């Protein structure tokens, strides 16, 4: 066991780290999943402890888990975990509610609970489906389960905004094969000194789950995190209490790879409203490509191509400052309609033209380089004409104007990106 823990720690130390991981390895938070998948070739590990501290005379549980996730493609990720359940009753209540969970003093090996394996497919950044299988791994003598697996799936809807955070909603269903009545009786007869006749509530049934939550960015390094999980047990005969778990806490980004989640967990049982429990959840996670700092990665990661263009685009020429200067009037893509902003600028220019009645001007129409030359020449002419019409309608004599279209031939800014290309869609008033 020590070797296994050592192996995990070594992997953690040599690996680049992850940002987002659910308890099950798939990207998410606690028992909530996000629609985004881990990118191809990237991976994540997490270690966590989900403690359930019940009221007196009921069993306390430590759920320690190790999880991993790996991006098979940009849209498909695998995830898995192994968890270790430990019963930590200070008063050693032997026959309390969770008989199957081994006592803390019975050792770590005996507490191995389940090995989960999940496959998540992102249909888009907002939708994903997940299938999973959960294999019980306990030693039968002290097992919390039988050897029967559980399996199920999740529908995941989430949204992500880099500046604010992530919000996700999950719908899940589990076909729970872990315990049935016969297994339970056999188990009780074999392991307990006092045989207890099983009641319907001792038998696990299929589960329907609904989860919602996410993370909200408070600062560059701190996120507010929260998850609510509602579990409904589908077998009405079992009369199991529907369960409502809530996690709330903070996520701290320790550096660009490591993060730690610390949360307070409250468990509410709907049916009787009495048997509540509370506890804590702590996990430490790492990711090879942290999602939340991708904006930063844009600046840090240099573009893949290395070919330098022989003919570099010249920097945009700075407009010459003139005693009486006019501003550019900008247009939307493939449009010659004056925007409200353009009209505001032109109204100022109307004042200048009225103040200088001796001044005659040329109105230039320009376009970006999208489209054919002929089309752009015509579009440039329409833009110049639109400006002319506006000035005339505001009282400037038509005889003072001349229009000319340069189309795409006289770009003022770089046309290889829309960030600057849009400023080439303009009209300019120039002294004649």
């Amino acid at each position: 066991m020590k070797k296994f823990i050592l192996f995990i720690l070594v992997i953690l130390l040599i690996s680049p780290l992850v940002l987002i991981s659910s308890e099950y390895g798939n990207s998410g938070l606690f028992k909530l999943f996000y629609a985004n998948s881990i990118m191809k070739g990237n991976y994540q590990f997490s270690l966590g402890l989900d403690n359930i501290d019940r009221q007196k005379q009921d069993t306390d549980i430590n759920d320690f888990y190790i999880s991993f996730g790996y991006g098979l493609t940009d849209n498909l990720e695998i995830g898995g975990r192994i968890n270790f359940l430990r019963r930590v009753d200070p008063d050693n209540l032997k026959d309390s509610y969770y008989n199957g969970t081994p006592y803390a003093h019975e050792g770590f090996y005996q507490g191995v609970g389940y090995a989960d394996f999940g496959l998540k497919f992102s249909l888009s950044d907002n939708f994903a489906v997940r299938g999973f299988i959960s294999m019980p791994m306990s030693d039968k003598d002290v097992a919390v389960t039988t050897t029967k697996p559980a399996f199920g799936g999740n529908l995941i809807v989430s949204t992500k905004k880099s500046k604010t955070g992530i919000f996700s909603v999950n719908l899940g269903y589990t076909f729970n094969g872990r315990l049935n009545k016969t297994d339970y009786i056999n188990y009780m007869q074999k392991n307990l000194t006092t045989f207890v006749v099983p009641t319907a509530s001792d038998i696990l049934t299929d589960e329907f789950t609904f989860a919602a939550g996410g993370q909200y960015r408070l600062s560059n390094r701190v996120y507010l995190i929260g998850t609510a999980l509602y579990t409904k047990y589908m077998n009405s005969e079992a009369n199991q209490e529907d369960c409502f778990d809530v996690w709330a806490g903070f996520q701290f980004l320790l550096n660009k790879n490591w993060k730690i989640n610390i949360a307070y967990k409250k468990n509410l049982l709907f049916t009787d409203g009495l048997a509540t429990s509370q506890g804590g959840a702590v996990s430490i996670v790492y990711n090879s490509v942290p999602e939340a700092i991708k904006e930063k990665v844009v600046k840090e990661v240099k573009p893949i191509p290395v070919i330098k263009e022989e003919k570099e685009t010249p920097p945009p020429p700075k407009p010459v400052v003139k005693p009486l200067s006019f501003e550019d009037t900008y247009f939307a893509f493939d449009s010659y309609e004056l925007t409200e902003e353009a009209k505001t600028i032109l109204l100022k220019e109307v004042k200048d033209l009225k103040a200088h009645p001796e001044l005659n001007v040329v109105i230039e129409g320009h376009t970006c380089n999208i489209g054919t030359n002929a089309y752009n020449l015509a579009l440039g002419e329409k833009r110049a004409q639109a400006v002319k019409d506006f000035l005339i309608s505001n009282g400037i004599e038509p005889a003072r104007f001349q229009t000319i279209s340069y189309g795409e031939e006289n770009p003022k800014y770089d046309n290889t990106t829309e960030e600057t290309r849009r400023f080439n869609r303009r009209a300019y008033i120039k002294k004649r």
Partner: protein
Amino acid sequence: MKKIIIVFITIVVLTFFLFSYERNIGNVYFPSFVHKGQVYKAGRYKVKVNEENGNYYFSLFKKGNLVLKELAVVKPVKYSFKGVKKQVLKGKEYFRISFYHNNNLVMGYFYLKK
């Protein structure tokens, strides 16, 4: 059970109103192109589109790393179509990715290397 489904659907609908738009275009083959004076090799890039402060951006990823972000050209249109169009425009000056969203044609123009 019905209540749960109604709550789920309500939350999903609210989610889309409260949060900004994001679309995963998938892997797209690009001819060699130029962006901000830098030449990019031809090849497959994973493309995502998201909305930030009222603008749409095309983000190109390679091996999980964000390679570049390009501001989209948005043009109001009265027609609509499904899916995503990817085409080299006449004259081979631009490679364009376009799709319809909310009465707009959202287009990413990538200037082809000559």
